[in-house]
């Protein structure tokens, strides 16, 4: 167990945050259900959804530092600058990673 750095007790933290997390969990479930109801092409093969599905097990693997590890999973881990920038946006998951 990590050294406490948050002033709340466990019960206080659950009382304060549970409903918000319940709603977010249901949003993820509803998003995946929605993908079951869309027309082709299936969103399931999209790199962003595959990355999301790879990230979800990290929530329950018992290792800790979940946020950092999920952010790392979603990141580009190459080290060299790309030859040129085409466009300015980002996807939220690394398109070159085989999730």
């Amino acid at each position, binding site marked *: 167990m990590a050294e406490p*750095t*948050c*002033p*709340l007790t466990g019960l206080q933290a659950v009382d*304060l*945050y549970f409903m918000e997390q319940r709603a977010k969990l249901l949003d993820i479930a509803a998003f995946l259900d929605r993908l079951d109801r869309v027309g082709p092409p299936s969103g399931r093969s999209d790199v962003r959804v595959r990355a999301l599905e790879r990230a979800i097990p990290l929530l329950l693997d018992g290792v800790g*530092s979940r*946020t*950092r590890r999920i*952010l*790392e999973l*979603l*990141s*580009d*881990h*190459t*080290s060299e*600058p*790309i*030859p*040129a*920038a*085409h*466009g*300015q*946006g*980002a*996807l*939220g*998951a*690394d*398109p070159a990673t085989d999730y």
Partner: protein
Amino acid sequence: MPYIDPHIHMVSRTTDDYARMAEAGCIAVTEPAFWAGFDRSSPAGFADYFRQLTETEPHRAARYGIAHYCWLCINPKEAEDPGFAREVMALIPEFLDRPNVLGIGEIGLNKNSRNELVILEEQIEIARRHDRLILVHTPHLEDKLKGTRLILAALRNAAVDPGRVLIDHVEEHTIKTVLDAGFWAGMTLYPDSKCTPQRAVDVIECYGRERIWINSAGDWGPSDPLAVPKCHVEMRRRGHGPDLATQISLTNPLTFLSQCPNFRPAALEPGWLSP
């Protein structure tokens, strides 16, 4: 409580936002030069933008008792054309001595391209040559980890004093590297990307309260100019004392920004902040 929002793009916000921020306790803002949501067609567009940052916004802010400071640069999203970027960079020195200018920013990387990196290195050199503070934008989402590493390497190669550089938009996967290298770290409170107030307080609980600040980075996209005081509420509801919000949003910004002699908000003169 009095606070500083050290990264907000007020050119994209309404005067009502200044009023609401003042009512919430904001005494000073610092506004980095950034991407307007479209690529500007000429360097003259940047000259007008720099005038807006150094002339118009300080007057607009002063009407609400808020001190307005700014940072100048060409942002990484418009740095892919080095010729264009160098024409804009040539404009910067004539604005650097204006009284509300703190330094060079927000420079950095966006897609981590070679040209972005070259222009970043040249703007670091401008800051070095003029002995100015640096505010750094780190890339979004999947590009942030790699971009942060490239940026820190460029700063190390330039032998810049890390105590005079703030690396902004850190998240859980980049903050440790930034702090361990001696740089300052900024957390941006965005509704959909970057940090929520809850995560920002988590990060402070995990990595400490030294060399960290929070900002709204309020701009023309989904963002909240009151994100900083809302994060203070998150601190309070967890049971943190007022000293935490004061350090993160007043003492720390004051310590970093006061390295520039231009940073002297009237509200921080003796007597203003005492009850």
